[in-house]
């Protein structure tokens, strides 16, 4: 798949930080800040994960769904695309695109039972809304649906480095990297390397020579590592009031 990723639409669509951090004018007018946007994305990425656990889909589907979700908001506003509906719809679309379909009915059942706090009562979407949103999301994604993830390169790289005992730690780090927009910015194997880098520090493994032999830009790896650590630091646990403060700026459901 080496040739595969490099020629994929995912690779061609990798974005720079500036493309991601900006808040659309319509959202700005509602007082939404970059920080609010970040919090909404973390909160709803967690929500996608929660729904997915109930629906018992594979991690790959979750990862694809979150990548769709994050990619959509590099192009669309929260005001026009209510993230509380977009998030479950991304899971629905990803489940189909990754060939493990979750029935709309079932998804809707979980949506009803596990709201997107803090105002879950207000936002009760129906199946019909999900299916309508599916079409809008396909268009927003410009119909590009293939996403590559760091999981497979991670397994291979760990084997290559002789560090398979780090699989648990690094796998979990990869999961948590979806709390950031990294998947939209870097090739998956680079994210995997950054997770191995953190894993080595945590578990006191010296993989210095191995990293040197790879001849990757260690500054890039370190930057990604810092971004992941920043997530643990500031976004792993967001106070409920802070989440609420961000969501309250979204328009009420029309």
């Amino acid at each position, binding site marked *: 798949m080496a040739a595969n990723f*490099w020629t994929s639409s995912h690779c061609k669509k990798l974005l720079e930080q500036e493309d991601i951090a900006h808040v659309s004018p319509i959202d700005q007018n509602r007082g939404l800040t970059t920080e609010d946007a970040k919090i909404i994305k973390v909160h709803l990425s967690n929500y996608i994960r929660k729904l997915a656990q109930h629906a018992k889909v*594979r991690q790959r589907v979750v990862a694809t769904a979150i990548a769709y979700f994050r990619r959509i908001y590099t192009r669309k506003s929260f005001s026009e695309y209510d993230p509380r509906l977009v998030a479950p719809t991304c899971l629905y679309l990803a489940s189909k695109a990754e060939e493990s*379909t979750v029935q709309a009915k079932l998804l809707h059942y979980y949506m009803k039972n596990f709201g997107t706090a803090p105002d879950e009562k207000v936002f009760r979407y129906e199946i019909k809304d999900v299916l309508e949103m599916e079409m809008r999301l396909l268009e927003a994604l410009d119909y590009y649906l293939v996403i590559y993830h760091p999981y497979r390169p991670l397994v291979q790289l760990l084997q290559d480095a002789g560090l398979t005992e780090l699989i648990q730690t690094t*796998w979990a780090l990869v999961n948590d990297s979806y709390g950031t927009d990294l998947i939209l910015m870097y090739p998956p194997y680079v994210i995997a390397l950054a997770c191995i880098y953190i894993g080595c520090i*945590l578990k006191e493994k010296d993989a210095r020579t191995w990293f040197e032999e*790879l001849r990757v830009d260690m500054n890039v790896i370190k930057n990604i590592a810092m971004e992941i650590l920043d997530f643990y*630091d500031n976004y792993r646990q967001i106070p409920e009031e802070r989440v609420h403060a961000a969501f309250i700026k979204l328009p009420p459901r029309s």
Partner: protein
Amino acid sequence: MAELSTTSGRYIKGVTLGEGTYGVVFKALDTLTNRTVAVKKIRLGKYKEGVHVTALREIKLLKELHDPNIIELIDVYPHKRNLNLVFEFMESDLEAVIKDRNIVLSSADIKSYMQMTLKGLAQCHKKWVLHRDLKPNNLLIATDGQLKLADFGLARILGSPDRNFTHQVFARWYRAPELLFGSKQYGAGVDIWAAGCIFAELMLRRPFLQGSSDIDQLGKIFAAFGTPRESQWPDMTSLPDYVEYQYCPAPPLRSLFPMASEDALDILLRMLTFDPKSRITAQQALEHRYFLIEPAPTRPVLLPRPPTRPEGKSKPAEVASPAAPIVLSPPNKARRVTLFPGGAGGDVHSSGRVDTGYPFPSRDASGGTVPGETPSDHGEIPMSVDMRTTAGQAIPPRPTLNSTDRSYLKRKLDMDLAVSHYQEEQQI
């Protein structure tokens, strides 16, 4: 492009070209480019499951595949509650060519059609896409004579989560023996088998192996190539639906294709090899002597083809043949054995697994985890790092980290001690 396409009126609808399983195809004029296009209108269910997965599959894969021998998906746009796929307009298809009695196909023509088919396939396989529905009517022919693979509604990316693929793919006559024996972990070889059948069909001008049932299909295959011996195809007996067939020797291939050259017979035999592991790959086939020596493949523009796209086509009736060998043992469906366990995780041609985005050669593929299998599949991997168990430990000195980095990281990790109980709920 997406914005433009939503403004209705870009396409002026023309006549209906045909109807498929999940939609109608009509001819249209793209006013933006002045090109004639084919618009496939996908019927959506009654607000039950949204966009049909076959349509989604076709869109997803064609957005990644760009090749002169793969149909171009020009645009996709929603219209009312339907999704419309815009393809380049294709004048004809290979089935129409094969069936047209006014057309004489020279060996150079056949070579040209085969080369284009294999080029399209090689591109798919390079991108880990299996077509899985190769047959003459899915090989469309453009106005300039280029043959293009179409109908990706059954196609799959190798290594999709559902690693056990269904064997209910391909029209029966083009189905590889491993599929007929119920294999669920097949690879690119299934497409090559179908291409081999198409090659034979181009020479014979009728479908080569016309089985009337799966059992009969295998019978037809064995009647043509002999019942395979264990040494020829070691994995055969462990396939899920394996049944023993009465031994039947192979007639000389030459007797079935009296007009074919030695090289043509050789490449045909390599494409129709029983063991998918020994079957030739699309890339290897393109480098086969058959394509190197005379006659050179006919230039696509000069290929003979039917004057216009016929409106309705019907399949030839399936013919039962009495000459096929008979089944000796009853189907044994209880035996479920995984083909290709463990190894060769990076070979598209050997198994239903996928490689990684990792650009370096792996030194050791024999680690604890089977390539292509995610640890999460075993439910033993936490979804999130528990920093509490590790953060208290000192960070080892690592020359790749300078001291500033180190203290920064350490500070970060120490702070994480305060992080609480989030990850428990994330366990699978």
